[in-house]
């Protein structure tokens, strides 16, 4: 992971952790990342990180009822979040 990806990972995991086991769409995650880091994070960068987190098994991605996908934090993701503190 690059430094930038690590920087984006933390707010993503923090936001999903705040949902207490719930799911969220990418737009809400993106808004939370922007809020935490200040300024706008390009969509491609965020998508790359979300893909990476999903590949690592740190977040779980499922298709939403209509379109797009919903993400939630896995146990592994929760552990990584704690390691990042």
């Amino acid at each position, binding site marked *: *992971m690059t430094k930038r990806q*690590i920087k984006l990972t933390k707010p993503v995991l923090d936001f999903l952790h705040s*949902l*207490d*086991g*719930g*799911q*969220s*769409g990418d*737009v*809400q995650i*993106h*808004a939370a990342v*922007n*809020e935490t880091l200040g300024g*706008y994070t*390009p*969509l491609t960068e965020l998508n790359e990180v979300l893909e990476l987190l999903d590949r*690592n*098994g*740190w977040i779980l991605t*499922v298709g*939403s*009822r*209509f*379109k*797009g996908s*919903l993400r*939630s934090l*896995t*146990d*592994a*993701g*929760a*552990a*990584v979040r704690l*390691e*990042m503190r």
Partner: protein
Amino acid sequence: MSAKLRGDTAGKTPSELTRFKRLWLTLDEAARDSWRACFASELTQPRIREEVKRKLRINLVDDKQLTVFRQWLVKQDARDEEQQLTDQDEAELIAQGLTGDALRKALIEKIQRRAYLQGDAKTGLAAVDRAQREVVTELDRNKFEFDAAKACLAKLPELKAIASNKQLSEDERLEQARLALFGSAPQ
């Protein structure tokens, strides 16, 4: 870094409440509606817990766990509803021709405005603050463009002379033009 971030959860078993939340997310809408009806029925809390144990094999040992789950459910339902609205917004914005980052920015602005209207002041005010900053930036840019255009017209003969001066390199011409328009750079 990824070697360091292992996400090792060996030996940890999720609580019954966590299992219930995870299971809930995998249920189809019909099953969820059936459970919602059960939660809203006249059944007592212990009776509902029994049902949950019998049908879902989730053993909630006290009523408080069920209460916590139902509070969580209210929040998750609100998020699901927000997701539906976001999907609708996205379809509308795509129809207007927005794509990529422009589409995402517009969507984020919409959810933040909605949050503000729904009383989520923290998220909403951040959106208002950002929108105001963008307006100020836009005004600053407009003013700069206007000033630059005015300066160009006033210094047109000088700029023409600089542009036609073959003794200067490209970099020197740019520097001379900048000096003519805006004066020396701040120290």
